[in-house]
């Protein structure tokens, strides 16, 4: 049975339906819900691991790639790679949420249910091979995350963040939809696999229309990945949303945007590379520069990390400018490492607020005594984000940047800008280290505090991942390159 390959998603949907019911009728539900959600994610990940062959069990009769619904969904290495990533990020977020979302908070059923639904939406995007399924997946994930951003509706910041996110999101969705309709008008199909041949038969007079359609898709998806100049919502929303949701947005939802961009441009429109590569190059340079410069001055940790994640989106976007298999592999690898780094860093921020330490950069002072392990993990995350060897961030940046250098031409300048940006970013990442380890703690001596275990586990796991990937990146690079090969043969 071919449809078994959708088991991971089916499980998530089933549990997502079950959770609100339990929330209504169950007892002690605040304790059960996160277990249920993480259980669903765990089983889903298990199946994905079996499909990819990480767990060498051949209990399903499944071939990779599999095409479903007349080619609307294709489950290939690319899809599986990203699905595993999305599932892992959500699992970490759910674990952290079990402590971050307090027992007496309202609407917990919706919270976990929407998280799972959003994850399914992201997974659909990873599998989509048609602009319609792509859009549906995008909207499933987006609409769920608008609601999640406003989960604490009595918190004005959370409500404001959700409102902004929704308005800008709706605008960008309409732009995407307009772009899709133009493509459909030009080619008569929404199947990405047929774009190449369909578009090559265009009349010369329709070039302008094609360019407009391309621009609309670039603009619409760039909102999702928060690339400049479509990034302005991100710092506000990241800061206002509950921190666990911020984690989800930065580490998961943003990567879905890249999945969509890769699918459309590096798969569907790859034969028109010359038309759009330069646009992505300019946006990548702009995005990383704006992100890093703005991060320099931020005092709020969440806001600083938000800008840092804008800058990282700029690095990843380089792959769209280079548009080679190697670059895509580098981007997917960086998406993987960045997911771990940002998950770890944001969950640390969430934990600091649970521990009532605060979320400003200077609140980190004395953390080395209050919670040495958190300080250590944060230090690893910061160093890795800055790209210090031998951590994961270095390895992935290295592959990404060297792909641009390999491509040659103007892309070398893009790599130079990226390297300069990395150097700039070191400043604000180092500021965190300085607060934690160098500056004296002042008069009131900090005391050792107890960390909530449910948040510490994902933090330590993410840190371990960052170190392991950094020390021995080869298998992860290979996996990313396999995934890239599925799109660009």
């Amino acid at each position: 049975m071919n449809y078994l390959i959708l088991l991971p998603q089916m499980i998530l949907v089933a549990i997502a339906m079950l959770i609100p019911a339990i929330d209504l009728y169950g007892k002690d539900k605040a304790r059960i819900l996160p277990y249920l959600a993480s259980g669903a994610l765990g089983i889903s990940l298990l199946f994905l691991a079996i499909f990819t062959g990480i767990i060498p069990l051949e209990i399903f009769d499944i071939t990779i790639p599999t095409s479903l619904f007349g080619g609307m969904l294709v489950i290939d290495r690319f899809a599986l790679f990203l699905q595993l990533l999305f599932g892992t990020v959500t699992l970490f977020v759910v674990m952290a949420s079990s402590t971050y979302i307090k027992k007496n908070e309202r609407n917990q059923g919706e919270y976990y249910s929407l998280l799972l639904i959003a994850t399914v939406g992201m997974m659909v995007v990873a599998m989509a091979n048609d602009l319609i399924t792509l859009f549906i997946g995008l909207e499933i994930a987006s609409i769920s995350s608008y609601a999640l951003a406003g989960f604490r509706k009595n918190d004005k910041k959370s409500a404001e963040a959700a409102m902004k996110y929704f308005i800008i999101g709706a605008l960008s969705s309409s732009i995407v939809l307009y772009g899709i309709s133009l493509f459909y008008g030009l080619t008569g199909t929404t199947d990405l696999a047929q774009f190449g041949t369909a578009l090559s038969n265009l009349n010369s007079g329709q070039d302008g229309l094609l360019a407009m359609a391309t621009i609309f898709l670039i603009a619409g998806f760039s909102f999702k990945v928060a690339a400049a100049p479509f990034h302005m919502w991100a710092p506000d929303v990241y800061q206002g949303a509950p921190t666990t949701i911020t984690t989800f947005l930065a580490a998961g939802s943003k990567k879905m945007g890249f999945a969509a961009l890769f699918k459309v441009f590096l798969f569907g429109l790859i034969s028109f590379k010359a038309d759009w590569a330069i646009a992505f190059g300019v946006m990548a340079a702009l995005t990383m520069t704006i992100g890093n410069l703005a991060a320099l001055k931020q005092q709020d940790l969440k806001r600083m990390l938000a800008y840092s994640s804008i800058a990282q989106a700029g690095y990843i976007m380089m792959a769209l400018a280079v548009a080679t298999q190697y670059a895509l592999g580098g981007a997917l690898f960086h998406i993987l490492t960045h997911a771990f780094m940002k998950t770890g860093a944001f969950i640390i921020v969430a934990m600091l607020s649970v521990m009532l330490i605060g979320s400003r950069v200077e609140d980190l002072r004395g953390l080395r005594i209050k919670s040495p392990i958190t300080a250590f993990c944060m230090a690893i995350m910061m160093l890795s984000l800055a790209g210090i060897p031998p951590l994961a961030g270095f390895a992935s940046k290295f592959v990404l940047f060297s792909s641009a250098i390999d491509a040659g031409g103007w892309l070398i300048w893009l790599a130079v800008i990226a390297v300069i940006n990395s150097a700039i970013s070191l400043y604000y990442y180092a500021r965190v280290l300085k607060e934690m380890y160098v500056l004296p703690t002042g008069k009131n001596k900090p005391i050792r505090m107890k960390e909530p275990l449910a948040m510490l586990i994902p933090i330590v796991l993410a840190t371990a991942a960052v170190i392991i990937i950094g020390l021995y990146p080869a298998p992860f690079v290979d996996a990313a390159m396999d995934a890239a090969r599925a799109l660009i043969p």
Partner: protein
Amino acid sequence: MTWVEFSYLIPIIPFIAFLIVAFFGNKMKEGGAPVTIAAVASTFVLSVLVLFDVYQNGSYETSMNWIGGTGLEVGIFIDNLTALMLIVVTFVSLMVSIYSLGYMHDDPCKRRYYAEIALFVGSMLGLILANNFLLMFIFWELVGVCSYLLIGFWYQKPAAASAAKKAFLVTRIGDVLFLTGIAMLYVKFGTLNFVELEHLMGHDVQGLLLPALLLFAGAVGKSAQFPLHVWLPNAMEGPTTVSALIHAATMVKAGIYLVARSYFILEHVPDAFLIIAIIGGITALMAATMALVQYDIKGVLAYSTISQLGYMMLALGAGAHAFGYTAGMFHLMNHAFFKALLFLAAGSVIHAVGSNDMRKMGGLHKHMKITSITMLIGSLSIAGFPFMSGFFSKDEVLSSVWHAAADNNIYYVLYAMGVITAFLTAFYMFRLWYMTFSGEQRDKSYHPHESPKTMTIPLMLLAILAAGAGFSFFFGFQDFIYFGHAPHVTIVHMFEMWQTWLSIAAGLGGIGLATLVYYKGSISPSVFTAGPGRRAVRHMLEMKYWMDEVYMAIAEKGVYGFSLLMDKFDRKVVDGAINGISSGGIGLGHASNEFDKGVIDGTVNGLSKASFKGGKLLWNLQSGRVQDYASVMILGVCGLIVLMMLTGVI
């Protein structure tokens, strides 16, 4: 199955020990010392087994891909040179860490000490085992970081903190040049693997001089060669055990090892050999003269290390066919033993006296016989007393330089400098010994006592090697460590050469003069300062040829001036530009505000405030108003259209 297959454990074990001690050391005896000692001991055992394997089966290499698709690898390469270095480093480190049990017993920060020692040793072993220049560089930097941490171990002392910084910064100059050299090699050959490079070297030897010299520059920084030697004397601010480790095994030997390891490159650029030899000769002589005027017992030893490192460089610079490679590495091994011995003995003295100042010592022989005798053996060895280990290696160094002189007359000058250095070395070492141990105790305010067994046993073991290791040259060493073809020197042959007698004369002459001045007292030390000329020379030596002052001037006038200029640039130009952009942004914000005023009014202002505060730079556009964001998005779409038009797509 062979032991070399487990050689990857050699650096890993100390790293694991580092983690264990760093996290759990406070709960263990002596701050985790047993873990560190056990780890170092097991690396020593492994190194011995590896040495036998290599002796029987030849060199060994294993590696794995590190970052896919880039050709960068993580791997181990073991040949005779590696095996020798492993033995030397692990043995000396073992002695030092055992000795530390006694020396650091009363220090409150023992956990940090043993953790950092384990890391230091692990990094050095990684450096030795690396199979390519990049991996070597990574460990090279780790060694640098550890030396920074350990020199500044007592960071409460301002002198220690600044010494640590000085060591870190000065060696950094060499490191940057080294990295540049690596990059040049990579660009030229596309690989950094030693074996592959050596293979490629046969085809293309053009333009190798610059990369070769850049590699050597790295060694100059790390091995404290002229003109980057200034950090090493200050480095004694750390615990004496750390000095012993840095001087004898882990840090400064890395530079020598690098030069030896790069021999396959250097042999194609004879000019580089000459430069290495000249730098080595200058360093040897200059440092020996500076050691003459030190009153700090560790100061004398520090300058003597620089001087002896100069000797090693001098030998390596003599080239392969003059057996400089064998001589240099032989001296490295012997120096590791006698310098570790001397430093640890000095530590024992400092432990008893509570001061580094030799003017407060004297007459200690009565109270600390073991320390005194072992130090005497070390001093005899470094002074080149016949049949001690230092005698053989020094003689090999000098004779290789003499051989090299057959091709280039400059080596005659270097040979002369080497002989003078040998004389000076013998003199200042015996000045040290007599001032410390003979005569009467000059400062009676303390009661010296012999150090505990954990300290004296390493001393005795090292003393045996410092005395006897020299004979190993004739029993295997010269057939094991060589480049090209092995030398065949016999003891009988050695004594047939007049050069051998000259170096014996230099050594005995130095010892004799020191005896007359500091033991018999038949020549007063004031002879050296009688008259303005002599006083000027002495002043110059005490000021260390004003090298520190020169560097300070360069740093202050040059670098600081430059940074002032940059600051001005920053304030005038960059800030101006940013202000300009942001006022443009405000204008744009106002315009768009007018445009859709009231479309979505009355969203909460909490975030807008935050973003206003947060984004003072050019982010006034980041107003927190969602209508502004939407306008910017539309502007972005327009921008993309313009871009596409500019690039000619539309």
